[in-house]
């Protein structure tokens, strides 16, 4: 097995608001291995972005608080590092690209300076050296006329080009982990494919691990080796892509998969299916499985006790009571 580079253990993140404590992330556990692409999928508000931002401690603290658990990166627990130490990790060891390239770049600073900024800080390069590296990086993300584009401002770039700039910015210090928070959501479909392709290509070149946050299973199928499915602030299923796509053991994952439009399934299959109901209120999360209320297979136990992560096979695990040996066989057969 490959070397483990990041371990998230029972991570709990809450936001203290006027209405009370929003438990956005509850007991999230997963590992990241060197050079792999891990996707965290789930619907809006399931805690995937908060989890990702916690890895770099980018959630505004306060109101965000890491209430428990640990994030082990290079034998250190990130959750209790000081701001100064975090700054040394951000951008050089772990870096991030964001959802909306239209707002994620500073409109009054040249693209070049926004890239060299991190270089000068982390690698102590001089202005001239940093410029050289940055232009090289712009070429690597396939921006034409990199030398002249270097001096331009973000508004002179299209959305796809800006996301390329973001990628250049994130990878310029050769980080060990790249977190991509819905990197293609704001882009149109043709550009999406190009950006994903580029990320894959660069990953091979500089051997970085990618954590891809998305709600788009189409994107995931394209790029991820392993998948973590989140719901209501919890990890409900995790496994290799094949496990999740073909041998899923969690009703929520089934719902997700069914809601993806597909060309290879018969034309007149009717309406695209959706999951009925709404996600739980994280101000007062239910004691049992967060999905129980929307789950057609829900049993009595589901509402009382949160199911543990049942190990299905090697890396594949699912937090659903139907995987318990005593679960009614009827459901198992239907699956």
């Amino acid at each position, binding site marked *: 097995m490959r070397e483990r580079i990041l371990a998230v253990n029972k991570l709990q993140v809450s936001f203290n608001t006027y209405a009370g404590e929003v438990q956005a992330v509850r007991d999230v556990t997963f590992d990241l291995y060197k050079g792999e692409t891990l996707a965290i999928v789930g619907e809006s508000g399931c805690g995937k972005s908060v989890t990702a931002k916690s890895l770099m401690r980018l959630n505004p603290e306060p109101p965000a608080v890491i209430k428990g658990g640990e994030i082990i990166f290079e034998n250190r627990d990130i959750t209790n590092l000081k*701001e100064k130490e975090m700054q040394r990790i*951000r951008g050089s060891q772990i870096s991030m690209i*964001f959802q909306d390239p239209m707002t994620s770049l500073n*409109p*009054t*600073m040249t693209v070049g300076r*926004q890239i060299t900024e991190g270089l000068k800080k982390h690698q102590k390069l001089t202005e001239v050296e940093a410029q050289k590296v940055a232009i090289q990086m712009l070429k690597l993300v396939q921006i034409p006329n990199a030398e002249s584009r270097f001096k331009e401002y973000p508004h002179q770039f299209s959305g796809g080009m800006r996301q390329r700039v973001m990628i250049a910015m994130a990878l310029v210090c050769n980080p060990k982990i790249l977190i991509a928070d819905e990197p293609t959501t704001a882009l149109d479909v043709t550009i999406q494919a190009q950006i994903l392709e580029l990320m894959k290509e660069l990953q091979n070149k500089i051997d970085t691990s990618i954590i891809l946050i998305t709600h788009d299973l189409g994107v995931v199928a394209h790029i991820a080796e392993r998948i973590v499915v989140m719901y209501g602030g919890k990890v409900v299923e995790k496994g290799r892509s094949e496990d999740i796509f073909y041998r899923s053991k969690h009703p929520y994952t089934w719902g997700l998969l069914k809601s993806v439009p597909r060309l290879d399934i018969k034309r007149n299959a009717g309406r695209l299916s959706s999951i009925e109901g709404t996600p739980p209120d994280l101000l007062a999360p239910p004691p049992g499985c967060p999905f129980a209320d929307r789950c057609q297979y829900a049993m009595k136990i589901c509402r009382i006790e949160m199911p543990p992560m049942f190990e299905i096979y090697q890396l594949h695990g699912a937090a659903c009571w139907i995987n318990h040996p005593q679960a009614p066989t009827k459901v198992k057969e239907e699956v």
Partner: protein
Amino acid sequence: MLRYILKRCLYALITLWVIATITFGLMKILPGDPFNDPKLKPDVKATLIKQYGLDKSIPEQYALYMKNLMRGDLGTSLKFPGRSVTKMIQESFPKSFALGWRAMVIAVAFGLTFGIIAALNHQKVFDYFTIFIAIIGISVPSIVMGPILVYTFGVNLGWLPVTVDGTQISYLLPSLTLALGSVAFISRLMRTTTLEVLNQDYIVTAKSKGITKRKIVWSHVIRNAIMPVVTVLGPLFAALITGSIVIEKIFAVAGLGEYFVSTIFLKDYPMIMGITIFYAALIIASILMIDIIYGFIDPKLRVTGRRGR
């Protein structure tokens, strides 16, 4: 860029003409005339009216005024016979200007600093302190603030002179009084825009690069936050340098401020026109100046300026 500036200058002239015309119209709508002193004999009054051309029809008067204006002649005052309006502005404006630019420097320096520090300490002590100062600065008029400052620093403590005698220190108290409202205004605005910028996505991006908070503020926050503030500085500058009647009365400065009020009561037609046009020209010029400065700090405008030929 040059073409852009020339175009703006042309617009400025048109604006000025519109303002002059409207003022002329409004002035003529005002009831009464400059010579309604009951002691004035009718024949003397008639002579005066004839002498100043007020017996002609209004369109004729307008045409005459515009003709003179084109030559830069603002006419002579009706109440201070023999003194040209231009001369009176020339004498009083420098005194108001001397206070005004100092007030402007104080307003910008303190306003920006307070605003930024308040935003960075959002909902902490300094933030509330700034809001408190801003509310006082905006709601307490200079007619109250002036005497309080004079009494405290001039009379009681005796630290500062209370009238302007031309020394640097003597300008401090009046320009500070003049600036207070603007300090409050600018700091409130700067605080709001800074808070807005701090919530932008690109600040998170900057943070994700591992840059220190201080550096984020200097190189990412301030330049973006200052832009909306720059737009209000033009009119503010014009307002400050043309003086305020209250402050000029309190500190015994023979500036321009007083004329704004007195000429209306006296119906000194050429003075009303002259001062209005002068003020309008100042405002237009400072807005123009700000537009040009803006072109330099906002990269988006810089490009349109170049390509928009």
